[in-house]
């Protein structure tokens, strides 16, 4: 009878790969579970000896520390939660401003790298080569300690055209202050926006009917601009009042004051990331075969048209995924703000750790925040890749 079972399985169970796989995974789970329990038990033990428990109830307690700059109302008496929000918003601010500027500079660099002009080409190449081998943190600290903090004192401020004040306490730039009619104007702008979309839709329809391609973008933007300008002129008072920065005692006042920390972080991140974006843009444009341009020209498209309708859509397919990951890098790198004292998410959280001793909760929270950001980004990437995937016939 044993003969037939041997025929069924063929090999003993300890050499049967199907069973071994399951056993192996169970063993792996078991080891992982033991490790996890070991860590958890030690952590709870350690916390108990420090007289602490896990939990986020401390979040409503009073923070008791100052934050240098904030987009929302904040004071020492605010809660930890509020402090955390301030940090989150500051990270968002640096990321958005940084991404915007780095994209512009990166595209310029990428195009310059492809320029037929020898000097421009070499300059861009030199820039990329220099930046790519620099350590980002040293670069950031250099901008902070060796550039922005070395600007003259407030009394001897350097004045740039356009009433920009450069001092070691920050940069003062002219800024608009909303007046009473600001919100009315916002509604006017919204109206202009929808009108522009309407115009664009009409033009597209007309283009379909007649077979000619009208300049949709141009006319839509002109409509929007016209509404914006007319609105500005018609309203009894302008929606924004120009506020110039000036020296007041030992400090700057008026306008918008950009702190040295913000300036150093933003310029460092922008100049660093732009080099990598430049490479991405160059690779993207070079990935479009020359035959595509020649074919477009043969079809009678103008130089600009072939660029806009043929080269660009194809280059974008190559550019966007690495571009997004550069954006993500910039956002993650903004956590280096902690080294120069800009109150971003990470810096504020480390202050909270010092203040409340809640290392486990805060580090988990910070990691979770960055993680959800990058997961959202990769979701978007997957969606985009799906959308622009080559449709093969």
């Amino acid at each position, binding site marked *: 009878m044993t003969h037939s079972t041997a025929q069924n399985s063929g090999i003993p169970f300890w050499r049967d790969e199907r069973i071994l*796989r399951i056993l192996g995974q169970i063993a*792996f789970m078991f080891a992982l579970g033991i490790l996890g329990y070991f860590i958890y038990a030690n952590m709870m033990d350690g916390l108990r000896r420090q007289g602490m428990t896990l939990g986020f109830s401390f979040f409503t307690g009073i923070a008791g520390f100052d934050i240098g700059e904030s987009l929302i109302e904040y004071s020492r008496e605010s809660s930890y939660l509020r402090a955390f929000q301030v940090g989150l918003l500051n990270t968002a601010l640096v990321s958005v401003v940084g991404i915007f500027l780095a994209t512009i500079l990166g595209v310029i660099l990428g195009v310059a790298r492809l320029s037929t002009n020898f000097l421009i080409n070499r300059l861009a190449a030199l820039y990329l080569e220099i930046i790519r081998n620099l*350590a980002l943190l040293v670069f950031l600290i250099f901008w902070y300690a060796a550039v922005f903090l070395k600007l003259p004192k407030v009394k001897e401020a350097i004045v740039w055209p356009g009433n920009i004040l450069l001092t070691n306490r920050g940069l003062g730039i002219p800024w608009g202050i909303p007046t009473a009619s600001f919100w009315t104007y916002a509604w006017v702008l919204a109206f202009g926006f929808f009108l522009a979309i309407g115009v664009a839709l009409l033009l597209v329809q007309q283009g379909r009917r007649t077979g000619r391609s009208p300049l949709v973008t141009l006319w839509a933007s002109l409509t929007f601009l016209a509404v914006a300008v007319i609105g500005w002129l018609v309203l009894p008072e302008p929606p924004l009042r120009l506020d110039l920065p000036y020296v007041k005692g030992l400090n700057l006042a008026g306008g918008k004051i950009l702190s040295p920390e913000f300036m150093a972080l933003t310029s460092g991140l922008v100049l660093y990331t732009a080099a990598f974006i430049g490479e991405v843009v160059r690779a993207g444009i070079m990935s479009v075969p020359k035959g595509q341009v020649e074919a477009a020209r043969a079809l009678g498209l103008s130089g600009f048209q072939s660029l806009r309708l043929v080269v660009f859509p194809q280059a974008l397919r190559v550019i966007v995924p690495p571009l997004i990951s550069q954006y993500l890098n910039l956002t993650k790198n903004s956590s280096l703000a902690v080294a120069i004292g800009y109150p971003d998410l990470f810096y504020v959280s480390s202050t909270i750790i010092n203040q409340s001793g809640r290392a486990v909760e805060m580090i988990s929270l910070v990691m979770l925040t960055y993680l959800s950001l990058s997961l959202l980004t990769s979701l978007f990437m997957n969606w985009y890749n799906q959308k622009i995937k080559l449709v093969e016939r």
Partner: protein
Amino acid sequence: MTDLANALPPLAERPTLLGWMRKNLFDTWYNSLLSILAILFIYWAARGMLTWAFQVAKWQVIAVNLRLFIIGQYPIEQAWRLWVSMLLLAFLIGNSLGIWGRSRVLLVTLFLLPLALAVLPFSGQVRLWLASLSGMGGLGWLIGRSAGRALRQVVIAGWVIWMPIFILLIHGITPEGQGWMPTVASNLWGGLLLTLLLTIVGIVFSFPLGVLLALGRRSELPIIRWFSIGYIELVRGVPLVTILFMAQLMLPLFLPANVTIDRVLRAMVGITLFSAAYLAENVRGGLQAISKGQFEAAHALGLNSAQTMILIVLPQALRLVIPILVSQFIGLFKDTTLVSIVGLFDLLGIADTVLAQPEFLGLQREVYVFISVLYWVLSYAMSYASQRLEVSLGLGER
């Protein structure tokens, strides 16, 4: 003979400077404008930088603190241990080049590097050590050259045991303050020494971990696959500085109360865990590039899964990803600066110590420029060496 035979060759366009400039700089009006702007910019930038570097900058701060930048607070009377490990390294490099190397340029560069460093204001003793580094490299090369392939196994073994020897020499054997090789506490390790140590440890330990994670991510076993995916995505989704903070603050919590763990070791753990996730993704790229036929052929030959991986797939996959791994390791080298945020005295951390000296207050520009240049030169040298290495390994030729 016809006249044709004596006909003059067609007029070749003689390349003249003016012609070249017209073609490459001034072919259209906007290119001319750009060129002029670029020339003005180069003039302005070069003038500013040269004036600063040669007339304004006070480089004494670097000269005086050179030892601090290179080995931190490491006791000077124990520095011979570091030199010995460097001598071993020079010998190994020279020997490997003698056996495998095809590139003379790389050899000469490495040979001249220590001699070039001797230009810096070091003491006579240090210069002697530097010269012997060159000598050791040359000796290794000669031996490797003459012994040829016979020495291969020995050299590979030498590379494998070099790192433990290096760490042992840094750390010391006999108890602190006594014996012939007293232990040097890790809070005294600093400067470039610590930076390089963190980099080497990070590379060596993240490599096997990363390869395992890459294999795990492609595994057919769901639990192992999901664990690998989770780990890789978690680590890649957060900034390095949060992982370093976690290693500094939470690692001691995770261990039993009676186990204390050194701050340098904590940073090493953090860097290794971080780097492994990125390495796994790079290796995965290589694994995906191996065609299915290789697996099938290996199975047809009767190899089991593990043998197929180790003997057939991994060697090819790793070979494919060498260039990208090198650039990842260069990134790791630059990322070690972040340990200064958690309070270690690496090259960047030591800068604060130097700048706090009363006689060197306010010399941030000099110090940070020096550090940046050091990082730049080392990163550039690494990427250059790896390019030469790719050529002599014949990567991308097949």
